[in-house]
């Protein structure tokens, strides 16, 4: 018997540190690098979200594309929605709400730190995406709500670049990252993992990958990893109308659809 499986994902990338040092400013945002150097405290507002800094280190990140701490903790019943909302109302930011819940014994310190770091790196991936408008920084005084764990700007930028590499190596076409997703007409569904099936279950032609992530209470980047793998396997396609391809007859021949997907991927390189 021939087992059909999805394309195995490529090796997780490790960025060449020497190469990063050689680059002019070694990061993704010169402004952020400068703020880190001057140990600034405040909020950096970029096109796709915000980074909160305390003495030059990142203590919190938010992006509309990434589910927050509350979404992660309430989606599977770790906390009930009311408990979270009550804490969120009392604190200025989600990490502060998390600390309140730890103090009240509703959450372990380890669970909070784990979710906090996952959501921070997740949101920062989108906040630090290339943007068309310059970022703005608002200095704030010290004494904001407590930080769960701070991450250095260098570590955050390094991880963000590594994550871009990872997605690119899985499937170089970002078309499925933000568009509504549709199941492709596949002849034989390849062997899917439980986590991929959970993603595919929510694909309905309307939801986008970030919306699926929010519904699952899973980091958006983690969802993108599975979405790109499913796109690479030909299980998923972008649902929004594609720009009309002139003189290309519609076909469902698997060889031709594979060639077309390859062409699209090559064009997006």
């Amino acid at each position: 018997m021939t087992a059909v499986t999805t394309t195995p994902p490529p090796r997780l990338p490790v960025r060449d540190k020497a190469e990063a040092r050689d680059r002019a400013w070694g990061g993704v945002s010169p402004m952020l690098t400068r703020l880190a150097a001057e140990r600034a405290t405040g909020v950096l507002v970029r096109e796709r979200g915000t980074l909160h800094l305390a003495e030059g280190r990142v203590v919190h990140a938010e992006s509309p594309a990434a589910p927050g701490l509350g979404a992660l903790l309430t989606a599977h019943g770790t906390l009930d929605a009311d408990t979270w909302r009550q804490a969120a109302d009392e604190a200025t930011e989600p990490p502060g709400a998390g600390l309140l819940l730890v103090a009240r014994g509703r959450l372990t310190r380890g669970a909070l730190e784990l979710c906090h770091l996952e959501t921070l790196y997740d949101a920062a991936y989108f906040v630090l995406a290339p943007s068309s408008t310059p970022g703005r920084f608002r200095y704030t005084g010290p004494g904001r709500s407590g930080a769960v764990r701070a991450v250095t700007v260098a570590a955050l930028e390094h991880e963000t670049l590594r994550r871009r590499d990872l997605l690119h190596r899985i499937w170089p076409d970002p078309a499925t990252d933000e568009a509504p997703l549709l199941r492709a007409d596949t002849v034989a569904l390849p062997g899917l993992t439980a986590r991929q099936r959970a993603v595919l279950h929510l694909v309905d032609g309307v939801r986008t990958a970030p919306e699926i992530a929010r519904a699952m209470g899973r980091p958006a980047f983690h969802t993108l990893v599975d979405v790109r793998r499913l796109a690479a396997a030909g299980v998923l396609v972008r649902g929004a109308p594609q720009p009309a391809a002139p003189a290309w007859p519609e076909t469902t021949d698997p060889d031709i659809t594979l060639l077309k997907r390859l062409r699209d991927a090559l064009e997006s390189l």
Partner: protein
Amino acid sequence: MPGIDECLLEVMQLPGARGAALVDWTSGLALGIAGESPGGDYETAAAEAAELARLAAEHRAFAPDDDITDPPVEDVIISNRDSYHVLCFVQTSFDSSVFLHLWLARVEGNLALARIRLGEMTGRLVLG
């Protein structure tokens, strides 16, 4: 109540422990590290261990018959001439893909003890 660093320091108290890391197997990110890193570079070690963990967690062949837990695998154990590696999956009540990687010197280490204690310590980390 232990945080990630306290948990890793406790893991490092195990006899023969050389290094420990809490790693996300989807992204390959090390969320915390303690002690030495196998191969000398923690980022490479985390990425390589994450690949192995992901394979173990995703393939049906390694799951129990009643595949209802996520991930279906409890741990992955590797032995070589001088050391053991134990990758212990962390079961959480929220969606996650995290494991604890313990690098254990073979002469001083006790694999059976380490495996049991890792399960207890990861449980305390997230469940209290």
